[in-house]
């Protein structure tokens, strides 16, 4: 089943109709005979979604077309009248077997734009399915680069109010209210500080000023607070919003974005507590703190990419919701947050060297405590990883998004 497209001519007819005259050469071994079910026709696809919309009538060949023989065909193509862009495949087919183009044969591709019942423009070219797949892949990649940003820009006001709603709603109905946003990280930090600083006598470096451990520990906790909150909730977030997926016209891809912002919000409180502690122990912030936003960018991208990935995965594997708590605990303790990295034996050094979280922890400590600029090479490496994860995470989420409604 192979055909070669010779010369052709597409001309607009009345309304949304195209007239096509086309030369096809039989490049296969079998002769095209209507009796054997050979015919030719066209299919109209939606250019935006690649969905098949309609199939034209199958026309038989008036006479058998032997191999290497050329046949001239005339047909009319009826495009849908609705405004939009359409892709038309014109190809021979064998009834109940396949379209030639599905078997790798050449076919004529017509791209047409219809505007309120009339063909506004059309272009045509010889193509193959392989070429189409490549183009589709290119489009996917192109979308992969633009869509994540478009998502966040287009829905910025919705994201803002969803985050607000999330934060306000979190402790709604409890007596502590918004206060818990501060108390929760504070209590957690105090507990860890007690266990590691007081009981286990952990020390960071030779510096033995009071509060040294607490401050180091808190600085390291800050990125963790934001990351763990977003990543920990990501696997269940779609499931928890199944109503939004199935019953509302809602951009589901912003749900993980909301989590990341909510996590950052918690971090802001953490920073306030930290700064309070810093002043309490008689230290000052240096101008290096101005690097913090620069660290936040890869942190944000990394967290969001991971959240997108896990959010989609969580729809397929409900177990992710249970698993993630455990994974996060492991991640927390293998990252030198509550102990100095020097305490890790050499053979475990990879634990923090290859750990994106540690890059953040270390950078936070540099700018907030040590008053030095963050170490650039690991931060740049992290930024690279973060951007890839961000784009890939969104692409992954976007790919599976269509199935969510069927699954929940």
């Amino acid at each position, binding site marked *: 089943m192979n055909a070669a497209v010779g010369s052709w001519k597409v001309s607009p007819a009345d309304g949304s109709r195209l007239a096509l005259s086309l030369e096809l050469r039989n490049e296969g071994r079998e002769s095209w005979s209507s009796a054997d079910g050979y015919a030719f026709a066209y299919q109209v696809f*939606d250019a935006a*979604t690649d*969905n*098949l*919309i*309609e199939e034209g009538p199958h026309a038989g060949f008036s006479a058998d077309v032997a191999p290497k023989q050329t046949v001239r065909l005339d047909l009319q193509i009826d495009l*849908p009248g*609705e*405004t*939009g862009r359409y892709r038309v495949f014109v190809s021979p087919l064998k009834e109940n077997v396949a379209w030639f183009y599905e078997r790798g044969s050449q076919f004529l591709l017509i791209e047409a734009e219809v505007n309120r019942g009339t063909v506004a423009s059309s272009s045509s070219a010889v193509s193959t399915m392989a070429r189409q797949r490549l183009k589709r892949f290119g489009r996917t990649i192109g979308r992969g680069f633009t869509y994540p940003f478009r998502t966040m820009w287009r829905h910025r*006001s*919705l994201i803002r*109010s*969803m985050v607000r*709603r999330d934060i306000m*709603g979190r402790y*709604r*109905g409890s007596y502590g209210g918004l206060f818990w946003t501060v108390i929760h990280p504070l209590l957690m930090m105090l507990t860890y500080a007690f266990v590691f600083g007081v009981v286990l006598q952990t020390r960071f470096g030779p510096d033995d000023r009071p509060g040294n451990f607490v401050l180091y520990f808190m600085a390291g906790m800050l990125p963790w607070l934001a990351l763990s909150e977003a990543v920990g909730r990501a696997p269940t977030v779609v499931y928890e919003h199944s*109503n*939004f*997926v*199935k*019953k*509302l*016209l*809602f951009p589901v891809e912003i749900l993980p974005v909301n989590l990341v912002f909510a996590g950052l919000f918690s971090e802001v409180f953490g920073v306030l507590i930290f700064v309070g502690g810093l002043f309490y122990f008689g230290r000052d912030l240096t101008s290096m703190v101005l690097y913090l936003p620069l660290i936040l960018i890869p942190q944000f991208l990394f967290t969001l990419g991971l959240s997108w990935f896990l959010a989609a995965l969580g*729809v*397929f*594997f*409900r177990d992710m919701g249970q698993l993630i708590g455990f994974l996060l605990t492991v991640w927390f303790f293998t990252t030198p947050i509550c102990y100095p990295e020097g305490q890790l034996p050499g053979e475990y050094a990879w634990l923090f060297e290859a750990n994106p979280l540690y890059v953040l922890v270390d950078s936070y400590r540099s700018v907030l405590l040590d008053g030095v600029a963050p170490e650039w090479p690991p931060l740049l490496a992290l930024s690279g990883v973060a951007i890839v994860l961000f784009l890939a995470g969104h692409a992954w989420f976007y790919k599976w998004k*269509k*199935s969510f*409604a*069927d*699954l929940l």
Partner: protein
Amino acid sequence: MLIANNISKVYRIYRRPADRLKEALWFGSRSLHEDFWALRNISFEVRPGETLGIVGANGSGKSTLLQILCGILEPTTGRVSREGRVAALLELGAGFNPEFSGRENIFINGEIMGLGRAEIERAMPSIERFAGIGNFIERPVKTYSSGMYVRLAFSTAIHVEPEILVVDEALAVGDAVFANRCVRKFKELQAAGVTIVFVSHDLGLVKQICSRAIFLEDGKIVEQGEPSAVMNRYVGTVLEGQKAFETETDRIKAETVSGVDGLNFSHRHGDRVAEVIEVELLDAAGRPTRAVGSGDPLSVRVISKFHADQPSPMIGMLIRTRNGLDVFGTNTAIEDVPIGPCAAGEQVTVEFRFECWLAAQEYTLTVAAQYSEGYSHDWLDDVITFRVVDARPLAGVANLHPAVTSTKSTVSRAEP
């Protein structure tokens, strides 16, 4: 403007959710699913100001179709063109957070539907007025009754100024007052050129507000066009299904009087000297029907067979409501159209023709062949179930189709 062009939807049924991922990892070289066609080749067009009603049994694909129309689901083939903002009311209060007050939820829902805060602020008084839930607007939504929930959600949805409104079974929960208000609002929206798609099991409502209707069965359009015609077809199908179900149940129940000649009945008695062998309900064109418009011509045909000579038998009919109230009964003697003496082996066909001035609800037909004294040869209770449909929500059982006039005059009261 909403156009569906050749919409089909295939659900891939996987035994486990993970199979879906697995299949993707095999790049289609292994198939781990079964296809289920929820919709097949659905095409229609709804113009601004038009309202399309969709009816169909549960599982016929209505909800899937609505989800595709709003863009929540992707169709497998075909294309939906939408012009303008879409508001979807698939489940009332789907985006509501129970902990938040009504007012806060209006903001959230409005924003989800694409309005800015300022726009919502502007619409707020009108939303509150339409919802009519008073001070509850400041209370958490979790304290609402389901009716109040519906009021608030519906009110929010119609105030986002949609160009296309898609509503699924929305008004079923509200009380009569609110339902009425919604109908009026629908009419207003129609006049304003809003495109509405509407799913309901309330056939009267569909007839009342829709300009066109679609009857879906097994994901396919069975009938499309004039609402009353579509409703009749739908009701006919539903009742057939019901009848089949009842026959089945009856058979299982007691192998009842061995459902002889294909007649269904809830009870049968008589000496069978004359036997009713066929009962049919016919419309004006003489076609069997199970749905009739209020006031439409209807005829009841009873065919009975005599096994012995009878001097003056009579044939009667009785219409009852579903809950057993006798609505109207007569027979050939009362009507003074005697069928005369009948000989053994003779078959008599009697037709009662009348205009069916009943109110919209479900009725049953009971028929009998009797002695002139009233004893039964063959009496069959509830042989046919049929439905009277009417766009107007009349009260009661009868439709007295009154001619209404009104006059006005000014009374001057300062006559000395």
